[in-house]
Structures are given as structure tokens and as C-alpha cells.
């Protein structure tokens, strides 16, 4: 029998009171309990970045984070990045640059890029590449993805 732990998680600003077994990951809880399925399950071992979310503003892998450890932390998923009906600037740039193909990796990429731009509003192309180091994309070859995000920094 597993312990069942009552936790309150702050997801995109809203409190969610949940009862979870300690071995359940944030990814499991987001997709199965909260039904926020924008966060993707890729490799389940931290290698692909599809499940990236922000915890207190920095990118972490939800597949490797246990939900029981996260009360009191601000969790941001792809569902929480848009401003009302407006796409987030990173999302708009990705669309404008034609950077999205199958889209499976995009939630993770958008969150990694958002965290980068909040810390460093005018990143170089190299900064963008480093920030996306953990986000694997098997369609795009990355070029347009990196161009789209770097275009937001206003550097030539």
C-alpha cells in the first residue's frame, strides 16, 4: 500500500487540492488528474524535454519531478502562458517563422524560451541554443525555432 499524500499544487496560478501517491510524477498528475494534457510525455527519463514546465520560473522536467515535493511552488505549463486570447510572444514568433511541424516538442520549447527571455531579454543565437539544449525536436532541424526565439531579443 502506498501512502496517499494530500497536496495543494499551484498550477498556472490556480490551486488544485489533490491526493497523490508519492511515486507519481508531476507529469502524471498534470495529464491524468488535472487533465492539462498540453505537457507531453516523451522519454520519461529526462532526455527529450517534451515534458518541460516551469517551477518558480525555471525549466524543470515534469517526468522527473514528484508531485508530492511541489506544494508552494509556482508551476507554469503551456496552458498558462497565453495572455487571455493572445498567444505568448514566443508562440507568435514560432508561428510567424514557420517553425512548427508536428508540434510535439513545442510546449517544452515555448516554456524553455519563456524562461530564457525572462532572465535575458536579448539573448544571442548561442544563448538560445544553450537554453534549448534539453529540448529535442525531430522535425525542424532547429534552425527556424532558434531564429524565431532569437528574433524576440531584437539583436541583428
Amino acid at each position: 500500500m502506498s501512502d496517499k499524500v494530500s497536496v495543494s499544487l499551484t498550477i498556472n496560478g490556480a490551486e488544485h487540492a489533490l491526493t497523490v501517491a508519492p511515486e507519481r510524477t508531476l507529469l502524471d498528475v498534470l495529464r491524468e488528474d488535472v487533465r492539462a494534457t498540453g505537457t507531453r510525455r516523451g522519454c520519461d527519463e529526462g532526455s527529450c524535454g517534451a515534458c518541460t514546465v516551469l517551477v518558480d520560473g525555471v525549466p524543470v522536467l515534469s517526468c522527473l519531478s514528484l508531485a508530492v515535493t511541489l506544494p508552494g511552488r509556482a508551476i507554469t505549463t503551456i496552458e498558462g502562458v497565453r495572455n487571455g486570447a493572445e498567444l505568448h510572444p514566443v508562440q507568435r514568433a514560432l508561428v510567424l517563422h514557420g517553425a512548427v511541424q508536428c508540434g510535439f516538442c513545442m510546449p517544452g520549447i515555448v516554456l524553455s524560451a519563456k524562461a530564457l527571455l525572462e532572465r535575458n531579454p536579448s539573448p544571442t543565437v548561442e544563448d538560445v541554443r544553450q537554453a534549448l539544449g534539453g529540448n529535442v525536436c525531430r522535425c525542424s532541424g532547429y534552425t527556424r525555432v532558434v531564429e524565431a526565439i532569437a528574433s524576440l531579443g531584437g539583436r541583428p
Partner: protein
Amino acid sequence: MRYAEPETVEAALSALSTHEDARCLAGGASLVAMMNAGRIGPGMLVSLHRIPELSTITETGDGLWLGAMCTHRTVAADARLRGAMAAVREAAAWLAHPAIRNMATLGGSVGLADPHTEIPVALVAASARVEVAGPGSRRVVPVESLFVDSYRTSLQRGELVTRVFLPRGEDGAVGHHLRFSRVAADYPTVSISLVLAMDGDRCRQVRVVVGSCGPVPLHVDAADQRLVGTRLEAEDVAEAGGLLARAAAPIDDVRGSAEYRRMLIPRLLGRALSQARERAHV
């Protein structure tokens, strides 16, 4: 599975002692990956994230104590890790990718003892010492005494790592970490960490450690001695590299064959020494 979130080291030790199959949970980067893969199913997790002592960094005259729960991101950003201690800062700055560095911890790297990783390598090069807390007592041991085999440490059941001490090293010493990997975010194929002190153009002291080339970080006294007193010329580096390559016990895997890894050692050693040397002169 049972779960505990103690707020002191003492409470963590007593939680660990209540269950035969209890494991510490730090950042979870490796532990949760192994649970997801069904490779382990601990009976109890004792999360260390609410213990303030374990995230503390303390500077002393001789060096820096880093709490076991310091993330790689925190270590990479600490500008006090200069001189010999920079080897550890550099290893933390470039390992894996940002999300892993945001989660994974120094203590987790020690507890995991994964021979493909590089924090253990840098810690051995920097002559780190580790404080281990067990039921009723704490002790400080040289970091290399903890790494006994692939994924095996000399920690006893119920013990945990509380903090790691990095000595400042002698005057003028510089630490450097060089990773060679297929792409930046991958585990290193081979890594080299070293601490070097020069007297003019002669090597006064050096400590070289090689990673991903055996079950534990590889340190060969004779290789260091082969370099001390020399001008680090090609022949000196080749011979010291040869000693390391012969002592290495690498494996074949997707990142490279054992033979390839052995060939890399002397070449990476030369590169790491010349990069460190440039820094020793600034």
C-alpha cells in the same frame, strides 16, 4: 511506497532508519528516471528538500562548504568557486542541459556514483571532502573513498551526504574541467578534470582525473608525477596520457568504443592542460 519530508538532518536519519528499503530523494533526476523505468521501487522515499542546512553554502579561510542539496545551477553560478575549486564549477555549468542543472544536486551526484557522469570526476580532482551523517555521528571523508564501484558508494544504509568541502588549493592553482561529448547536452564520452599549479613555465603540481573510463573516477599518481617538474611538452603529456590510458577500464557503448576512449585520453589531457595553463598565467 512511504514518503517523508523531514526538516532536519536528524529527522531524516531517523526516517531512513524506519524502513529497510528507504532512499533519499534529492532532485530526483536519476532516482525518478530509474523508478519510471521500473528499475527500482524503493519502499520509502525520504525527501531532503525541506532541510535548510542542506542548501547552505559556507565560506571558510580554506575553501567552501557546499550543501548536498545545492543544485548544479547554484554551483555553476557561485563566483567564489575560483582557483582550484573552478573545476567543480565548470563541471556543474556544462553538464547535461539547463532543466537537469536546475533540478539535480551535488549530493545526488555523489550518492548516485554513476561512472558516466562528471561531477564525481571534478570533485576528486579538486580533492573534495564529504561530510557524511549517520545515526548518532558525522564524519568527513575524502570524496574518492566514497566511490567504490559503478553506482556503488561506501555510504552505509541509513547514512546521507550533508555537505561537500572544496579546498581552495595552493596559491596560483587553477582548476579546469574538459568534457568531450557527441553533442553539448549528452553525457561525456570522456571527461578530464584537473588542478594545475605552475612555476613560470614548469609544472609545480598537478592532479589529473579522468571520467567515463572505468567504474570510478580514474586518478593515477604516476601520471601526475610524470608531469610535475616538466614544461608540459608534447612528450610529457603523451607519456602521462599513456599511463592513464593503460590504467583505464572503459567500456564500449553508444558514445564510443573502449578503444576510442583510450585514444581520447592523451589528446584531451593535452588540450585540458593547455587550456588550464593559459588561465594559470592570467
